[in-house]
C-alpha cells in the first residue's frame, strides 16, 4: 500500500465555488443512486426481471382460474399489476433510504451546504426512474404474452404516464417510512404495509368478487382509484360499459389521490429529514 503523501497542493477553497443549488444538488445525488444500480448486477437484474416474473406467474397460473365479465383476464390484469407495482418497488425505496441513514450517508449529505430537500428529491426521482424501467420492461413482456390496448396509443402512453406519476407520489411515502424505520431491516418490516393495499384492490380480481366488508375497503383506497384509471385508459371505447364510468372520471379521481398523497407525504418526509 502506498504511503501517505504530505504534498501541499492547495485545495480550491469551498467558498470560491459558490453554492450548489437545488437542481445541481439533486442531480448530483440522484446520479449516485442510478450509478449504484447500473454497476451492481444483482440490483439491475432484480429491477428488470423480478416484476416481469411475478407478472408471468399471475398471467399463466392464476389467470386461468379468474373470470372477469366482458374482457380477457390478461387485459384486466396488466393495468392492475403495473399500477400496484409502485407499492412493491416502494419497499426498495424505504429500505434504501433507511440504509443510507443507517450507514451514515445521510449524515454526510446533511452536513453539506446543500438544500435539505435535495437528498430526498434525488431519491424520489432516481427511484421513480428505476421503477419506470421495471414497468416498461414488464409492459413489453405483457404485450408479448397477449395484452392489447383497446384504445389509442396516446391513451396507452397516458396510462403509463399515470403509473409513473403514482410512482413519484408513493416514493415520498416510502421515503418517510424509510426515515422513520431507521434501519434497513425495520424498513423492510414496515414495507409489509403494502400487501393489503395491493391485494385488497381492483388490481388482480374484480372488487365485486370480494366479501362485502372487504369491498368497502377496496372501493375507497387509492390503489383501486389508480388501477381503475390505468385500466380505463387501456380499454378505449369499452371503458364506460365495462367499468361503469367514463375514463375521465377515473383519471381525475386517480390524479386527485396522487396530488393528495404528495401533499401529505412530501412535507412529512422533509420534516422527518430535518429533525435529525
Amino acid at each position, binding site marked *: 500500500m502506498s504511503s501517505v503523501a504530505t504534498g501541499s497542493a492547495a485545495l480550491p477553497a469551498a467558498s*470560491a465555488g459558490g453554492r450548489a443549488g437545488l437542481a445541481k444538488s439533486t442531480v448530483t445525488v440522484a446520479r*449516485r443512486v442510478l450509478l449504484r444500480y447500473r454497476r451492481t448486477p444483482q440490483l439491475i437484474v432484480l429491477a428488470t426481471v423480478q416484476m416481469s416474473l411475478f407478472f408471468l406467474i399471475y398471467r399463466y397460473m392464476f389467470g386461468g382460474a379468474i373470470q372477469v365479465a366482458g374482457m380477457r383476464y390478461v387485459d384486466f390484469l396488466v393495468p392492475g399489476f403495473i399500477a400496484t407495482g409502485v407499492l412493491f418497488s416502494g419497499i426498495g425505496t424505504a429500505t434504501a433510504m433507511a440504509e443510507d441513514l443507517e450507514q451514515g450517508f445521510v449524515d454526510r449529505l446533511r452536513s453539506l451546504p446543500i438544500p435539505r430537500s435535495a437528498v430526498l428529491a434525488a431519491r424520489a426521482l432516481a427511484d421513480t426512474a428505476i421503477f419506470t424501467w421495471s414497468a416498461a420492461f414488464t409492459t413489453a413482456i405483457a404485450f408479448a404474452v397477449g395484452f392489447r390496448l383497446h384504445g389509442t396509443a396516446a391513451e396507452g402512453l397516458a396510462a403509463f404516464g399515470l403509473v409513473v406519476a403514482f410512482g413519484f407520489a408513493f416514493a415520498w411515502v416510502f421515503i418517510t417510512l424509510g426515515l422513520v424505520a431507521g434501519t434497513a431491516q425495520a424498513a423492510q418490516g414496515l414495507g409489509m404495509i403494502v400487501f393489503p393495499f395491493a391485494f385488497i384492490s381492483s388490481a388482480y380480481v374484480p372488487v365485486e368478487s370480494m366479501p362485502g366488508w372487504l369491498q368497502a375497503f377496496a372501493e375507497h383506497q387509492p390503489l383501486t382509484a389508480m388501477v381503475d384509471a390505468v385500466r380505463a385508459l387501456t380499454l378505449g371505447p369499452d371503458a364506460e360499459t365495462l367499468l361503469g364510468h367514463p375514463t375521465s372520471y377515473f383519471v381525475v379521481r386517480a390524479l386527485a389521490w396522487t396530488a393528495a398523497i404528495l401533499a401529505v407525504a412530501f412535507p412529512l418526509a422533509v420534516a422527518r429529514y430535518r429533525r*435529525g
Partner: protein
Amino acid sequence: MAATIEARGVRKRYGGTAALDGLDLVAERGQVVAVLGPNGAGKTTFVRAVATLVRLDAGTLRVAGHDVAKEPDAVRRSIGLAGQFAAVEPAMTGRENLEMVATLFGHDRRAAKRAAAAVLDRLGLADAGDRLARTYSGGMRRRLDLGASLVGAPRLLLLDEPTAGLDPRSRIELWDAIRALVAQGTDVLLTTQYLDEADHLAGRIVIVDHGRAVAAGTPDELKRRIGGNVVELHVREARDLPPAAELLDRLRPGAVQIDAPTRRVSVRVDADGDGLLPVVRAVQEARIEIDDIALRRPDLDEVFLALTGQPAAQAA
C-alpha cells in the same frame, strides 16, 4: 478570530437519557482536540451537534463564530464530517466519490476534478482512485471517507471514531494521514475511545463522561493531574497473575489492575514511595517468573480510570 468550537452548557436528551448534559468545550484555532470517553458518553452526539445534525435542547454552540442553530449553512461551509461509518458509495470510484462531494460543496466541474485529484494524492489513494470503492480495503475506505470530509477544504474536520474497527496497520496509516492534514493547518475535532489515539494525535484532550466534560488539558497535564507512578509487572505465566496481584496489593490495597490477556498487573503508587526495589525482592521470594517490571508515569488509561471510575475502552 473566533474560536473554532465554543460550546457552553450544551444539552440534548433522547427520551429519558441525557446524551449531552451541560457540556462545555472550547477548541481554539490551530488545535487538534480529542474528545475521549467510553461508549454512551455523548461523544457522537456532540460531533453531530457541531455538524448541525442535532437540534440542541439548551446551551449555545458556535462553530467558527457561527451559531449552529441560527446559521447552519455557514457552519456547514466550515466543516467536513467523517462519521463512524465510511460513508462512501461502494459502486462509485474513489475519484467519483470525491467529485460528488466537491460538487455538492459548490465547485464547478473543473474545480471538483482538481480538488478530488489533490485529495487522492494527499491521502495516498492516487493509484486506486479509478477503482470502485467496493474493491477497497477497510483502511482505504476510511481514508477515502476522510478525503470526502476534506475535499471541500473545510476549516474544521470532524472525525467520529476515525479508526474504530481498523486493523493496527490501517490505524497507523490513518493516523499519519490525519497528522499530515494537521501539519497543513486544518483544525480537527476527533472522538475516540482509544487513549493512545488521543495521546498520539491531539494537543488537547477533553474527557467526557455522562454527557459532561470531566477533565481537559494537554496529555501531559492530564497525566500529571493524577500524580504518582505506576508499578507494572508483566508475568511469564498466566498462573502467576494471582500471586503477582497479591504482591502489588500490599503497595496499595484494593487498587491493583489485572490485565489478563497481556499478563500484566499494575498498581498506582505515590511518587515519593519506595520505588521498585522492594517489589523486585518480593517477586524473587515468591518465585514468580517475570518478563518485565517497570516503574512509569501513568498512561491515559489510568488517568481515565482515576477521573471517571471506569476503564476507557470498556464497551457500554
